[in-house]
């Protein structure tokens, strides 16, 4: 599986993401600076976590208007897999690849803790290595993870199986509507999620529950290659 990680000023989770991708696929991802206007040929594009542009204006707002994003949108529309984690999820909403917006946590506090996630849809390129309704452990670390969309959009996401992950067992850390932790684009090739699966992929992390996501993607990549 060939992958690329997009780097913005203020991105800080690219190293763990690169390690997780290497672990699952055996290949190092390309690292692409946000000012680039081209991308290498890849099966997966990742927008990692961090605080791109210092969260100025709104989290992900400036990153979403970076030069490289036109190419990310083009590739997404061609069917290339795109994964946005945390700040990456915020940026995917801001650029319009995913509906809705991540608002300030209902508690107004930055949350950094472990939550339980339910795999709400296993028929996706990102989650097929998991069992239906499997509950996994996963860390979160964010200030703006409170997913908001109007009721019609939420109904549509549920009806179309586009909720990939839900906070489970009362662990919703941010007030997110309908316990949404991760959603898919209409075509299913773009996933945005607030929790950090890349930080549950090494024995030293305490569990390997996030590896299924990367193995799912790597499996697709191998089939495509």
């Amino acid at each position: 599986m060939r992958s690329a990680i997009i780097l913005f000023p203020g991105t800080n989770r690219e190293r763990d993401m690169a390690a997780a991708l290497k672990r699952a696929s055996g290949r190092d991802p390309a690292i692409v600076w946000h000012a680039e206007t081209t991308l290498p040929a890849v099966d997966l594009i990742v927008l990692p976590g961090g605080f791109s542009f210092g969260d100025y204006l709104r989290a992900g707002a400036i990153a979403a208007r970076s030069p490289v994003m036109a190419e990310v949108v083009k590739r997404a529309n061609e069917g290339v897999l795109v994964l946005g984690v945390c700040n990456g999820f915020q940026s995917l909403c801001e650029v319009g690849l995913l509906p809705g917006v991540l608002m300030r946590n209902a508690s107004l506090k930055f949350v950094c803790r472990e939550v339980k996630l339910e795999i709400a849809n296993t028929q996706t390129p990102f989650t097929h290595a998991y069992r239906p309704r499997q509950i996994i452990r996963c860390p979160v670390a964010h200030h703006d993870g409170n997913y908001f969309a109007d009721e019609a959009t939420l109904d549509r996401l549920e009806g179309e199986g586009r909720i990939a992950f839900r906070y489970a067992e009362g662990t919703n850390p941010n007030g997110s509507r309908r316990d949404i932790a991760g959603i898919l684009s209409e075509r299913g090739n773009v996933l945005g999620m607030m929790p950090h699966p890349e930080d549950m992929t090494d024995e030293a992390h305490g569990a390997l529950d996030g590896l299924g996501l990367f193995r799912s993607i790597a499996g697709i990549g191998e089939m495509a290659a």
Partner: protein
Amino acid sequence: MRARVFVTLKSGVLDPQGQAIQGALGALGFAGVQSVRQGKVFDIELADGADAETELKAMCEKLLANTVIENYRVEFGSDRG
């Protein structure tokens, strides 16, 4: 040409920051505060000759406001601040 852009949360969108500010005002003894909604203000200077109204509307739609949750309003000719 000067313009001032106001970006505010749409009604019905929860504003926890506004609520926290309301709580703090109450703690300072301002007992009559019934609601606080917070927002953003942008002062923008434009070169003369541009179609300012069209330009500013596009700026709001494309960047200054997230229209999923926010409304915007533009005032022209403001020389405040």
